[in-house]
């Protein structure tokens, strides 16, 4: 490049020309540089597979679709948090324990202290954000790998969940939340459905099946799906369109370089830890209000599932690269396979084998993509 002269007198103003060299990069090459590409291919593959093997089993009927969509949405909620945090260069292994703990923070005050359910939910969110803040603060202050810091939180929170639950209720499942909540809007917010009339209309026109009593087999879209989509849209926009998003990429790509140009890296990272905790609490609330109880083993292993979904979705473990759309695809693959296996009659035991394989393939693929993108030699 050194031989190029620095001034070309006949240069046209930049505004009027698109760069003619842009044409050299084909649309396929541009697509290849997208982090979500691998996950998208995975989604196509998974749907093709189950379409062929379970196409006529009801997996793609309204109720079947709702079942895998719900499972996917649940994971999506935590995967979105994990993906943003991973792009920001950190991990949170305490997501699963946070789900259990946040559930307890809602259920115990409601059932045993007689708090209004709305207050308990607020309390749980505040508590979770506080713990997320601590995770982040310890990580950025000590410079320890977040892997270790949040591994500690994983144990502490799970232990606290069980210990507090036994202390107050003498058992590990706290039920009675539904009764205490009554018809509070909180129940609807986390466990209700939307679009009921649409499904009634669908059933009325024989587009979906009806129950024996004439009601549609699916009576609405569960709020957990609404939460997943809302969080995904918000996270995607923040990541790709805003300054904070650019800072997240910067903090994960090279924290020192980002600091040198004035990015508040620590603040960004701490906020991301708080966001994963927020996502975990949303997940917890959806479960608590769906089942009417909090159980101390809720969310077990979810931290890994969330990370797997993010990685399948193209997030690099080293940070600085990835997308929310990819993480959504990752969670979708997860949900479809988990539920789809039930329809195919393949023993459920194979689910984890598949998952592990998928993860390995995704990581290898991501590595290849990264080399291509950064032209690493």
């Amino acid at each position: 490049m050194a031989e190029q002269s620095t001034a070309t007198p006949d240069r046209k103003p930049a505004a009027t020309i698109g760069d003619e060299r842009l044409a050299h990069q084909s649309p396929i090459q541009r697509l290849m540089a997208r982090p979500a590409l691998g996950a998208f291919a995975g989604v196509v593959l998974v749907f093709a597979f189950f379409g062929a093997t379970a196409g006529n089993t009801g997996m793609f009927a309204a109720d079947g679709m709702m079942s895998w969509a719900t499972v996917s949405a649940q994971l999506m909620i935590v995967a979105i948090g994990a993906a943003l945090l991973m792009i920001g260069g950190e991990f949170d292994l305490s997501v699963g324990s946070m789900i259990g703990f946040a559930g307890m923070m809602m259920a115990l005050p409601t059932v045993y202290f007689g708090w209004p359910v709305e207050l308990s939910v607020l309390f749980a969110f505040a508590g979770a954000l506080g713990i997320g803040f601590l995770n982040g603060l310890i990580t950025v202050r000590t410079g320890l790998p977040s892997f270790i810091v949040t591994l500690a939180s994983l144990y502490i929170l799970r232990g606290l969940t069980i210990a507090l639950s036994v202390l107050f209720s003498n058992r590990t499942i706290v039920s009675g939340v539904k009764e205490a909540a009554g018809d509070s809007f909180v129940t609807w917010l986390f466990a209700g459905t939307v679009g009921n009339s649409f499904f009634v209309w669908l059933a009325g026109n024989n587009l979906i099946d009806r129950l024996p009593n004439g009601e549609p087999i699916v009576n609405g879209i569960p709020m957990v799906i609404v939460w997943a989509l809302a969080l995904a849209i918000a996270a995607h926009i923040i990541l790709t369109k805003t300054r904070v998003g650019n800072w997240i990429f910067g903090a994960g790509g090279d924290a020192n370089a980002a600091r040198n140009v004035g990015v508040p890296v620590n603040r960004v990272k701490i906020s991301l830890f708080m966001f994963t905790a927020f996502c975990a609490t949303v997940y917890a609330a959806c479960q608590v209000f769906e089942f009417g109880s909090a159980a101390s083993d809720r969310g077990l292993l979810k931290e890994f599932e969330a990370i797997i979904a993010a990685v399948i979705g193209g997030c690099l473990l080293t940070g600085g690269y990835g997308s929310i759309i990819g993480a959504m695809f990752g969670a979708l693959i997860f949900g479809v396979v988990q539920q789809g296996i039930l329809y195919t009659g393949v023993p459920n035991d194979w689910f984890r084998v598949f998952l592990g394989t998928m993860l390995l393939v995704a990581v290898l693929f991501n590595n290849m993509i990264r080399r291509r993108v950064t032209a690493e030699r």
Partner: protein
Amino acid sequence: MTATDIRPIAPTPQPGRALIEVHNLVKHFGPVIALAGVSLTLHAGEVHCLLGDNGAGKSTLIKTLSGVFRPTNGDFMVEGEQVSFGSPRDALDRGIATVYQDLAMIPLLSITRNFFLGREPVKWRVGPFSFIDMEHADQIAREEMRQIGINVRDPQQHVGTLSGGERQCVAIARAVHFGAKVLILDEPTSALGVAQTSMVLKYVRQLRQKGLGIIFITHNVRHAYAVGDRFTILNRGKTLGTFKKSEITLDRLQIMMAGDKELQQLDEELGGTV
């Protein structure tokens, strides 16, 4: 380089005016004396090379100038005004920008995102979130690249696809675009090949003509001699002296930088090839 439209670029300083003056700068880290009284003056429109072997205090000095460290003692003036920087941000606000050798760019981010990282142009805001005016940012990034002589196909391509020299130039162009009057370049050529180095040196010379003050840190005397107007040699935390180009030869510089005797001896043994 014509001024771009969004940001008022700092008024070009008159050539010859002192931009940075430090007198007897001292920096201790506990019992370690990293700087034991360093003095240096940087004028507008000059390339001031800072030479010294490892451990001479170069890094400590530039980190002090760029606001990373607070000096333990001594005077630090920017354009005649006494300053005390608490963070690199403060230094940036006074027009002192530092481009670090390896920490300049983030390979996984696009050129545009790198260029504007930390100072993204804002289109509108919603609550705490400011939306980036990406189109405008792309346009500026492309124009800036073109002016350095780097042809980018697409400013959204990842910085990892640029060569080392190009990355350095982009990092420097970024600092200039955001109003730097003083550029501190930390070993900008040490990891580069010959063609890449000449690209960077050419760009440095171009910036000097525009009236910027440039502190050029290197331990390659040849690179320094190619662009430098003045040379300050550091040794064990002290200045051995400042010389104009007309006052000193390349060989003499080399010898002084290495702490005289030993290298001179070695040089003779190796037949003048060091």
